[in-house]
């Protein structure tokens, strides 16, 4: 394995790859700033570091390349790695637009190499549990899905981009949203399966501080309504709602599932089985019991050292490597990558006229 792009997220990739020694070894890391490659190699005792991607590919000949650079370079680096015969894991967002995503996926198909993208939440333990519930028919037929993604602009990354007018986020077509909302949209796309559903998007900013530069043009609140032929979805991205929450609710014809990605719980809301006032007493206890049970499950996972921050990334990387070794399907279908890229294109088209007021 090799990693290109040695910023903060590369730490997570190194840590998770190293948990899979039976599948992979990191042979080198690369960053166009050699000092950044050096620091990653130093902290994790990695064998080689480079400031030239060409040199890394030539000298180490990795089987898989993880692209963890800023999004502007994803397509070019992924294509270069594919052309060199590597399989490629690309951090989200996969590309700057759907056309770029298609270029990479088409090339991967042409050269017979696999590609995946860092949709970690697809493989978080609660997401896996939800998928089992849906497959069992616990929800009935899904009718609507609501995806909420809370973001902390006062966190390290938020401070960095708000403190630097030249930060690469400000040059993305979809700015902050483009770097984050894959995590919001991929939970919707799993249920809204149309190729091109109707989209209505609204952006705004609730920040009061004005800097007089490009940072003032950074919206921090987004609402999206998505209408498919059978299932509808709402997406909420908020930088101001507290507490920070990340959840998805899937509304079915029998039950409603609530998946909390922060607390890592999955609970079901069911129709009362008893009549009248008694029927209204019971659900609160059922909900409490469901949360208690989910909490106990988490304690058990923790005790088994199976409650890791990047559990989803580990599952994704492991699945991706196994798909390479056994020739199976890549863990994330190319169609989903394209559909999410298409949704993002449409959302940014609709919100591009944002001027400080909701559009």
């Amino acid at each position: 394995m090799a990693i290109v792009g040695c910023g903060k997220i590369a730490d997570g990739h190194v840590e998770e790859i190293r948990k899979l020694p039976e599948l992979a070894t990191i042979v080198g890391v690369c960053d166009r700033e050699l000092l950044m490659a050096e620091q990653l190699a130093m902290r994790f005792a990695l064998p080689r570091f480079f400031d030239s991607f060409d040199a890394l590919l030539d000298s180490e000949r990795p089987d898989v390349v993880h692209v963890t650079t800023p999004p502007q370079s994803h397509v070019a680096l992924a294509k270069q790695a594919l052309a060199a015969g590597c399989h490629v894991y690309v951090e989200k967002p996969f590309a700057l637009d759907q056309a770029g995503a298609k270029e990479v996926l088409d090339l991967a198909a042409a050269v017979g190499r696999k590609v995946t993208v860092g949709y970690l939440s697809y493989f978080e333990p609660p997401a896996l549990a939800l998928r089992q519930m849906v497959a069992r028919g616990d929800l009935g037929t899904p009718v609507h899905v609501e995806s909420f993604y809370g973001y902390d602009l006062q966190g390290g990354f938020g401070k960095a981009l708000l403190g630097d007018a030249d930060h690469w986020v400000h040059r993305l077509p979809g700015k902050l949203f483009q770097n984050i909302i894959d995590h919001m949209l991929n939970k919707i796309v799993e249920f809204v399966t149309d190729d091109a559903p109707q989209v209505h998007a609204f952006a705004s900013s609730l920040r009061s501080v004005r800097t007089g530069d490009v940072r003032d043009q950074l919206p921090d609140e987004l609402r999206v309504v998505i209408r498919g032929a059978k299932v509808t979805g709402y997406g909420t991205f908020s930088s101001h709602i507290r507490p920070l929450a990340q959840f998805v609710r899937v509304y079915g014809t029998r039950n409603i599932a609530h998946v909390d990605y922060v607390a890592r719980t999955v609970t079901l809301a069911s129709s009362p089985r008893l009549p009248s006032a008694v029927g209204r007493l019971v659900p609160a206890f059922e909900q409490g019991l469901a949360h208690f049970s989910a909490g106990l499950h988490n304690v058990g996972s923790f005790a088994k050292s199976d409650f890791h921050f990047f559990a989803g990334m580990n599952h994704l990387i492991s699945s991706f490597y196994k798909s390479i070794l056994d020739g199976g399907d890549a863990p994330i279908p190319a169609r989903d990558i394209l559909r999410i890229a298409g949704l993002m294109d449409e959302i940014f088209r609709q919100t591009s006229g944002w001027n400080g007021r909701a559009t």
Partner: protein
Amino acid sequence: MTTLVTGASGFLGGALVERLLVAGERDVRCLLRVGSSRLRLEALARAYPGARIELFTGGLTGTSDAAAALAGVDLVYHLAAGMSGAAADMFLNTVVTSKNLLTALVALPRPPKVVLVSSFGVYGAAELPRGALIDESAPTEQHPERRDSYSQAKLRQEKLFWDYRKQHGFPLSVLRPGVIYGPGGTAISSRVGLALAGRFLYIGGDNILPLSQVDNCAAAMALVGSRPETDGQIYNVVDDDLPTCRQFLDRYQTQVRRLKTLPIPYPVMRALSWAAERYSRFSRGQLPAVFTPYRTATTWGGNRFDNRKLKALGWRPTVSTDEGLRLAFAHFRAAGSG
């Protein structure tokens, strides 16, 4: 003479600019990132109407702002550094920014003198016996991978400056301050202990706390910058009459506010760190190894500190430790902070 101060809006940066003005400097260029607070520097500009204090907005994420900021400069005080965040961010904001500054600096026909603010964190204290004297000849860290990200970044930054000096030959002096404190600074250093869940884990015990009052530190910087014989030299910056962590905390609690303290003796902290590191390894990083025996030995192992080299240059702390603590604690009490 034109002097450039990077990180001028910071705690030490503001004190340094003031010190330079007091010392008679009349042309100071302050490099500020967009959005940095300018209040103190603007107040200084009003207080010294005869001086030219240029607030130069720019960053060191590339070389272009650095080159513009360096135009016509005779002396550079480089204070800008990452103070928090992920390891990669810290490295980016400390080391890569330094490289950009150096790239622009060595491209000048006559590179100016540089005074770099490094840190006590570059010393390899974990491998010294408890109570060992740390002077400028003490070994620097040989195992950066075992240290915290701040120390890793400062160590690499300092090496970068020495490498560039060796290659390009510009005058360079390095200062390694201890715990810089004062009104507006950090109330309690991690060398004393750590706040956790409403408790203050008091770990420092009777270790000597290597304090450097912010104005004393700024005066040391100004002095080193003004003296040609400091080229190629390293200076520790700590005050006289250093208190122990216990004395510091007692006084803090008397003069600022009471804390719910939980004393943790050093051997217990070593044992806890050992367990934390083992558990992190066992659980494959489910909980990060924030505490390790090596880091614990570095921070709480207990050393003595030497400032004789700086004193030989003529520096003396103008603010006594007793007075410095009184002023700092009065500030924290009034601000309701700490």
